[in-house]
């Protein structure tokens, strides 16, 4: 396994687009998580309120809310690292190096594992940064301190890593199928920002199929870290990782992995 990770690392370490995208993602993540507080203060200054609540008193960085808050905000940026994976995979097809790798003695499964190890690495790296940000912001702003609170709900950091990994696996299947980075990136953007929302919107409003929409891939992935902010305006809010949500998300992980495997087996390199 170490060998497969090394191979991927040698391939990508001098790829400029990779570093730009990675930097972009982490800057966005840090800016939003640190800047969210200032944003709320700004809203207060503008005289805005949520049903009579002053936005600046929302305890964004208070344990144990903090982990779900941060993970939820981070989920909006998962498309950046997904782009990196798409680029690194489509490079292989463009340069036909995926073929040369196999000719040189890599099995197709090893090729796949090598790519997936990179996806897992990015998801874990993001989780580690989230963890560090959480401890930093918590120690600066949280009014409750102490280890008994700090580690509560910390499972959302793991949920974040899993969420990213499943999303990356989906992106990988897409690029394996399309084989071109441009089209894959546009399709992923369209689906993530628009398409699934439109489809589930129609299903919910026109057909009232509320149960079905939770099975859509993006929604299933997003529900690993549900929107936590409703509770601040007294809406019913899920503040735990639901077992059913986890099961549906893992089902998609299985489907994506199976799809990738099938693409690799079926097609000529």
């Amino acid at each position, binding site marked *: 396994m170490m060998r497969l990770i090394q191979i991927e690392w040698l391939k990508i370490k*001098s790829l400029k687009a990779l570093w730009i995208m990675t930097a972009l993602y982490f800057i966005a993540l840090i800016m939003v998580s640190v800047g969210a507080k200032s944003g709320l203060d700004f809203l207060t200054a503008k005289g805005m309120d949520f049903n009579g609540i002053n936005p600046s008193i929302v305890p964004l960085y208070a344990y144990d809310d903090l982990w779900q808050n941060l993970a939820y905000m981070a989920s909006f940026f998962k498309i950046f690292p997904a782009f990196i994976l798409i680029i690194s995979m489509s490079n292989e097809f463009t340069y036909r190096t995926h073929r040369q790798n196999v*000719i040189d003695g890599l099995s197709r499964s090893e090729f796949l594992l090598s790519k997936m190890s990179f996806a897992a690495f990015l998801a874990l790296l993001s989780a580690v940064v989230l963890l560090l940000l959480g401890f930093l912001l918590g120690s600066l702003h949280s009014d409750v301190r102490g280890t008994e609170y700090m580690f509560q709900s910390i499972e959302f950091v793991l949920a974040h890593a899993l969420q990213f990994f499943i999303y990356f696996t989906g992106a990988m299947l897409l690029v394996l199928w399309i084989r071109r980075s441009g089209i894959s990136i546009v399709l992923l953007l369209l689906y993530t920002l628009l398409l699934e929302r439109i489809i589930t919107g129609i299903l919910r409003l026109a057909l009232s199929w509320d149960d079905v929409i939770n099975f859509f891939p993006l929604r299933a992935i997003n529900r690993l870290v549900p929107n936590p902010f409703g509770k601040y305006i007294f809406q019913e809010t899920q503040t735990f990782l639901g077992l059913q949500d986890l099961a549906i998300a893992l089902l998609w992980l299985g489907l994506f992995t199976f799809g990738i495997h099938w693409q690799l087996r079926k097609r000529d390199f």
Partner: protein
Amino acid sequence: MSETVLEVAGLSKRYKRIQALQALDLEVHERSVFGLLGPNGSGKSTTLGILLGAIHRDGGSYSWFGQGEAHHLRKRIGAILETPCFYHYLDAESNLRVVARIKECSEEAIPAVLERVGLSNRRKDAFKTYSLGMKQRLAIASALLGDPSVLVLDEPTNGLDPQGIAEIRELIVELAAEGRTIVLASHLLDEVQKVCSDFAVLKQGKKIYQGSVAELNEHEDVYIVNSNDREGLKSLLSEWSFVKQVKEREDELYVQVTEAMGAAEFNKKCMDKGQALTKLIRQSGSLEKRFLEILRQGQ
């Protein structure tokens, strides 16, 4: 008989409408330089693609080193298929480092193989800045990593200038002399003749000929002759053991000989027997003709 490095039995492949390979059988022995000869689109690259795990086959089997098809066996083979495939943004050294990790061989061999193909001074430059000849040489350097006993080369001189072609051929001959087994696909008869010991001819996915290059060369000498005493000349030629075949055409005789001799010697032999030739042409490049003949027969 030396050991069999590669055995292919009944290999078939069909792309949607084209039968790319039909029940191909091949056997490549240790230390031979085996040429896979055929016009473009005859199935050479498909064959090599299947043998190297890149293309799925529909039927048949193959075996490397008598051990089957497992992917790890390919680590002992140095191969380039069609165009050289490398990461454009990486330099030569980094590209070879990736290959070394895949082949699980030491990176220490990298400077030596780069030196061998004359790329040492460009080793820190990105692949995308290379000329076609340099890309091809890097591909050969990559194939040499891990000191493989078998090399598979698909059209290694494609797109090179005459000097580049000569260099690559010289390198192949050197590599063969080191005792490596080489499988070389080419559409150039001349190339196969210059570097190979054995060869097979493919046409539309079928093997239509297999033999040694030495055998093929035997058929080389053809004399086109005539004399005023046609019948006398014919009977004289039929007496000689080195004459393989005499074909009669309108105003000439077409004589195939098995023994290489100059036109002067042939003329002298006829004069000694009292036959004055009115026409004597020694046909050169008849290997080409022979090849075309094989292709025609395969139809």
